């Protein structure tokens, strides 16, 4: 398309229908002289003119672009170590080490395919993500609608504060709290012992229950924080819609169904796409801390596996290979989820033009 993406004044209303179907081609039947007279109406502004016009905007985004370049894009090049048997100590500094490391082609990927620990980690990651999608994702939406229905401003502010607070606790603290309540010497277990039920209640070391335990922990810690986006979306809903719905005789549930939820739909779709795209990233600290309690078989996720093999055991190349595969699959997931969002008529993360 020849259209520039920089903002420009909309063409006059009557021109639009003619322009659409012929996009990319020069509109026919217009005298050249007219365009020369006022080029802005044509969208045919030259590159240098645009540069002169937009340079403050470009200058403003430049720091971000540089930061992204330095911290996100250039490091991507470091992924070449996935095709090596890389040792950071083979030389002075990263590039020297890289030059001195042996190239092994796709050996690391080959090893990954045959590594049962890796597949265990993949399986755990997907199970945890799936459970979070199922149980964690809807909760902030429900909470946001609930909070939004509280009209008393003080009660509302207090409820919000209480819901946000656990987000600021560290995982160490959250898990300690859970240990004190659900652990083998915790509140529940001791209360049961006091009442003669001496059967060793302990949910914190049960590998089978672990996937539900961590979902519960995530809900407890982050569900409150998750409502912020939805509350923001709800605040933009035109109150008149509720009023007119009420006038038309809609009850509380019908108003929620026909006004509130449709208003939230784009945000829900957006977050769903992001959540699905992040399916291979379910968190790390939470699993590191509880790894020994339930064993790596139940608690190892992709990120902890990469950390353990890469940083802890110094197999940088293998960890990089896993990282690449993880990145590619995450990208595929985002694109797929986005496509579904488009099919549902939503914008998703980006808009197709």
């Amino acid at each position, binding site marked *: 398309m020849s259209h520039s993406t920089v903002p420009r004044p909309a063409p006059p209303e009557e021109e639009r229908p003619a322009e659409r179907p012929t996009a990319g081609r020069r509109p026919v039947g217009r005298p050249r002289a007219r365009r020369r007279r006022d080029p802005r109406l044509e969208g045919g502004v030259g590159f240098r003119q645009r540069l002169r016009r937009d340079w403050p905007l470009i200058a403003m985004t430049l720091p971000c672009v540089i930061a992204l370049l330095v911290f996100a894009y250039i490091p991507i090049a470091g992924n070449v170590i996935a095709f090596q048997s890389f*040792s*950071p*100590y083979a030389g002075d500094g990263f590039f020297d080490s890289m030059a001195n490391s042996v190239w092994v082609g796709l050996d690391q990927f080959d090893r990954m395919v045959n590594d049962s620990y890796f597949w265990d980690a993949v399986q755990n990651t997907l199970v945890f993500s799936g459970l979070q999608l199922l149980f964690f994702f809807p909760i902030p939406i429900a909470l946001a609608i609930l909070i939004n229905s509280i009209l008393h401003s003080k009660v509302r502010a207090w409820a919000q504060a209480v819901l946000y607070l656990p987000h600021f606790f560290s995982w160490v603290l959250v898990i*300690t709290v859970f240990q004190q309540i659900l652990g083998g*010497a915790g509140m529940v277990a001791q209360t049961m012992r006091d009442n003669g039920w001496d059967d060793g209640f302990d949910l914190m070391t049960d590998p089978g229950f672990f996937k539900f335990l961590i979902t519960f922990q995530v809900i407890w810690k982050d569900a409150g924080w998750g409502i912020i986006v939805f509350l923001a979306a709800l605040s933009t809903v035109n109150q008149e819609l509720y009023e007119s719905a009420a006038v038309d005789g809609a009850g509380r549930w019908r108003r929620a169904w026909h006004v509130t939820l449709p208003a939230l739909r784009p945000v829900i779709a957006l977050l769903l796409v992001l959540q699905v795209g992040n399916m291979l990233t379910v968190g790390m600290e939470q699993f*590191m801390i509880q790894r020994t*309690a339930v*064993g790596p078989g139940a608690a190892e996720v992709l990120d902890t596996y990469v950390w353990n093999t890469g940083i802890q055991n*110094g197999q940088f190349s293998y960890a990089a290979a896993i990282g690449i595969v993880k990145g590619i699959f995450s990208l595929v997931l985002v694109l797929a989820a986005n496509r579904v969002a488009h099919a549902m008529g939503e914008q998703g993360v980006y808009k197709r033009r």
Partner: protein
Amino acid sequence: MSNSPSAPSRRRFLTSTAAAAAATAGGIPLLSACGSDGAAGGGGEGRVAENELESILPTYRASDVAVEPDIPSENGSSPGYTSFIPEDELGVTVPQPKGNGGEYRVMSPLWGTPPSDGNAYWTAMDEAIGVRVRWQTQDGNTYGDKLGAVLAGSDIPDLVCVPGWELTGQIPRAISSRFADLGPFLSGDRVFDYPNLAAVPTAAWEASVFGGALRGLPMPSPPIGGVVPFYRQDIFEANGWAPPTDAEEFLSFCQDVTSARNRVWACEDMKWSAWIIHGVLPERPQYWEEVDGRLVNRYETDAYLEGLEWTRRLYDAGVVHPDAVAVQGDALVRFTSGESLMFNTGQGVWHNTLTEQRTANPDFRMNAFDYFGVGGADPVLYAGNGATIWTFVNKDLPEERIREALEIANFCAAPYGTREQLLRTYGVQDVHYTVENEQRVRTPQGEEEVVPETYTFIATPGHFVAASDVPQLVEDQTGWLKRQMPYVREPLFYGRQIQEPDQFTNLNDQFEALEDDVVRGRRSIRDVQDAAAEWRRNGGDELRDWYQRLRDEESA
């Protein structure tokens, strides 16, 4: 030493060994002077040959200012000091600052809350040494994460502390390629320029040879490294219990004293004690024994399986504190609060715990029980390396900067009964401690600035036990050491650093997680046997041949 993916338990117990800020006058030089014609090592992998080693090691010369111990060393046990030495009777090894005001970035682990920059203790130490140290302390429990990243980068601090349990993966290789050979400054009689370093036991220097060169400044280990099995002597005596003296008896005793209803459990995780009770070989690289002329690895031995099975039975019987099963919280806190009656950890916690508890609970007493074997057999305590924590000097430093850095180490290694040692362990009088009734009592500022140890990691004198405030501790600890010394045995390949070829680096990675799974009943002893078979297939047998060649070359 370790090859674990994540080993909080191990870190914690070794930590406390590290915190045993200890010094001694009389170290025993263990250098065997037989000049064999070993050809291994020299460069990267392997280990350095005996005759080569002899020329590398510093000459031992006992300190001439050291104080006679109140409880002398026996069979190599640590000497003990019970009496108080007043300020004016202290010896002096560094009369005036030897440094030239150079600035050093030092990276070290730190357990506890780091004191603020430019605090009175660090300033006093710097002034006495004549340098300016910029500390880059990192949380000791997660030190390995930082260390790997720092060593893999290009901006390495001037001095870097590396604890032995972080020598995993590629770290040993990093040490050979990133840090300076101190041989030109310390080998042979050259060490006499630094008299306190000359008094560091030779065993500690032997363990500081990396990649064929003397690179480490050692923190000498106690003669018995590893864990000490502690029990609550006050609770035991109040109930008329005696510590168990046999592996089977230990199990039944634990079941008798556990009362979950009253929040009392017999013990914490005892896996590390189980190794000693069952005579299990230590970890890499001293993890071989010779059976009928063939090397057998720790992971292939029956003792290893028996030790695991014994620990599993403890877990299974429900006598291990549930928080220990879940690896949450602090074992020491559960021990001092009486929720668990026995636990094992490094000996460093002993003194601190006693002084801490005495204010809150004057009856508090802890002691270590003697190790026992299975069915009347003797326990086996494999001698650990002479040093398990080192500080290394960046190889990019110019010569005179290295000499100045060694002056820092020389100051830190001053023996017990000297002003330097007092300054390092207690700080400045009337700022960090006061003298009351012939006792040094730390002030809150002292607790804050001196107790989280920093300079200790650069170098220390040989191990000793000193506690004029709790003389009972000195007797208990030296007594325990003396009673265990007869069971100390040197493993094969004892004493020096061995760097295995790169392809074996990650061979043992799976075992620690597997052990934790087995003792918690999630996997079986059968799985360990399968893992050992897999280990053999994946390179264990080749590794055996490699060690066998090393051994043949040594005995040739």
